[in-house]
């Protein structure tokens, strides 16, 4: 396996008396797509929220390239190279596609404070935004209002925004949710391309897609990791089938 980028070390989260995550361990490596599976309520969202800094863990550590980032908020983690997309589309609907990504890219400028320059004329930022838009497959739609994009395009925009921040670790929360088969095919292609020089955590319900792109799969049940390994191992695991896959097929 190649170098570990992001390590979740025994992450635990309680909500009142409820334990949403119990000692979850996940390792994301560069060049690898790691999928997180599990039935609803298994704790996948809690886990990704802790990794992105949206939710502080009750216990456990998060290491980014060997450095402890557990105490950092989402903004600080973003600057260290962790980017995330959201399950429910979370964009700036009134802005154009370009402006959505330009804002993302602008957060990487050494001095985003300047108040007397025209934002649209800061060329390095605009260029980075345009490159991210093209990479995410939205080329040609730069001037469209984000709120008027199709659902699938909005999911792509989510990813374009993360790319515009130059994230090296991508946390993608159900990027295929609500997509038609053609759109998801394109998204799977995109994911394949993106993982080449990044580490990706993918939370997804679409089994076909997951088994098509994932290098490693972790299955969570009731807040804990049930099994983790390459797709073949997961596909053949009796535990997983009993707890999860079987349920899918029969239900």
């Amino acid at each position, binding site marked *: 396996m190649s170098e570990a980028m992001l390590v979740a070390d025994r992450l635990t989260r309680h909500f009142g008396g409820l334990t949403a995550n119990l000692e979850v361990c996940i390792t994301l490596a560069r060049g690898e797509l790691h999928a997180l599976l599990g039935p609803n309520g298994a704790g996948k969202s809690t886990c990704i929220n802790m990794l992105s800094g949206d939710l502080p863990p009750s216990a456990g550590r998060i290491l980014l390239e060997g450095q402890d980032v557990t105490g950092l908020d989402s*903004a600080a983690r973003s600057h260290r190279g962790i980017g995330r997309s*959201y399950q429910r589309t979370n964009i700036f609907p*009134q802005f154009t596609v370009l402006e959505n990504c330009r*804002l993302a890219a602008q957060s*990487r400028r050494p001095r985003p*404070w*300047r108040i007397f*320059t025209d*934002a649209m004329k800061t060329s390095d930022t605009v260029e980075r935004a345009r490159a991210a838009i093209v990479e995410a497959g939205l080329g040609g739609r730069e001037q469209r209002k984000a709120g008027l994009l199709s659902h699938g395009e909005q999911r792509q925009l989510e990813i374009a925004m993360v790319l515009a921040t130059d994230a090296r670790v991508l946390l993608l929360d159900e990027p295929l949710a609500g997509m038609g088969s053609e759109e998801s095919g394109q998204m799977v292609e995109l994911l394949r391309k993106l993982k080449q020089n990044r580490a990706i955590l993918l939370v997804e319900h679409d089994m076909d897609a997951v088994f098509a792109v994932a290098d490693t799969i972790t299955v969570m049940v009731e807040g804990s990791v049930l099994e983790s390994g390459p797709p073949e191992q997961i596909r053949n695991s009796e535990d997983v089938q009993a707890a999860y896959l079987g349920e899918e097929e029969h239900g």
Partner: protein
Amino acid sequence: MNSAVVTLFKLAVLAGLVLFPAIGSSFYVELVAKILIMAIFAMSLALLVGFTGLVSLGHAAYFGIAAYTVALVAPEYEAANLWFVLTASVLAAGAAAFFIGLFVLRTKGIYFIMVTLAFAQMAYYIFHDTALGRSSDGIYLNVKPDASLFGWAPFSLDEPLHLYYFILAAMVAVFVLLAYVLRSPFGRVLAGIHSNEHRMKSLGYSTFRYKLAAFTLAGALAGVAGFLYAVLFGFVTPEYLSWHQSGNVLMMVILGGLGSLAGAVAGAFAFIGLQEMFSDWTKHWQLLMGLVIVAAVLFMPTGLAGLPRRIFRTVNWGEDDE
């Protein structure tokens, strides 16, 4: 509406304001000067309410603190230097906004509205009750500040016309400044915070700092308005910091329609125009004002600035949906 028409319209309004003293009586010149000051005040609040999504109900605090700074810094019977007192009062207002911002920006939504109001009331009591405000009745500024700069006096604020043009220039300067700020990278961050603060955080923005910067800038610009108001009327009172003052300027911003500087200016004209008209009719003019406000909420949710657009759209058979 196309942007050339809008620019032309703004220039025409500016030309009207420049030429106004040639036709208006001194009473109306002073009234328009007052409106221009309120327009500065309203624009400063629009930066928060309209562009950042921070509904402050305590903005009069910074207006009043700047006004009091003039009164407290200036010598009693001789002219203070204009540039010195202007700087001092704007800095005082900005510093107060920075300090209060550290507290109030920890809250959101309804809390933010209540807490900004409460801090402004605290500032009100400081000038109303403690020795700092000298007397709860207020303080007279006996002499207008002297505009000389290294011995050269470009104009004299004792001249009502000079004062009018000074205020007009300040209004235009604040308008232009804010227009630049809003299209700058900083302004775009504020717009992003207004649209979706959570996403801004996950994109790597420490939104608190940006909001604090906006709050401080808005406070300092409200200070420009408070300073000019004190100079124009030669008098400061704790009422400048009262919550009615905060409420009134918020009304101007909302009535003008959110999200445009010109709207804030229009709101100031409309609000003070109505106030003058109603108070000519009756001592109980606030009743009419209250009815107008209630009716505006019930029947005109997009504000005055939305009005021409709505009429335009109706004429276009609803085809224009931008």
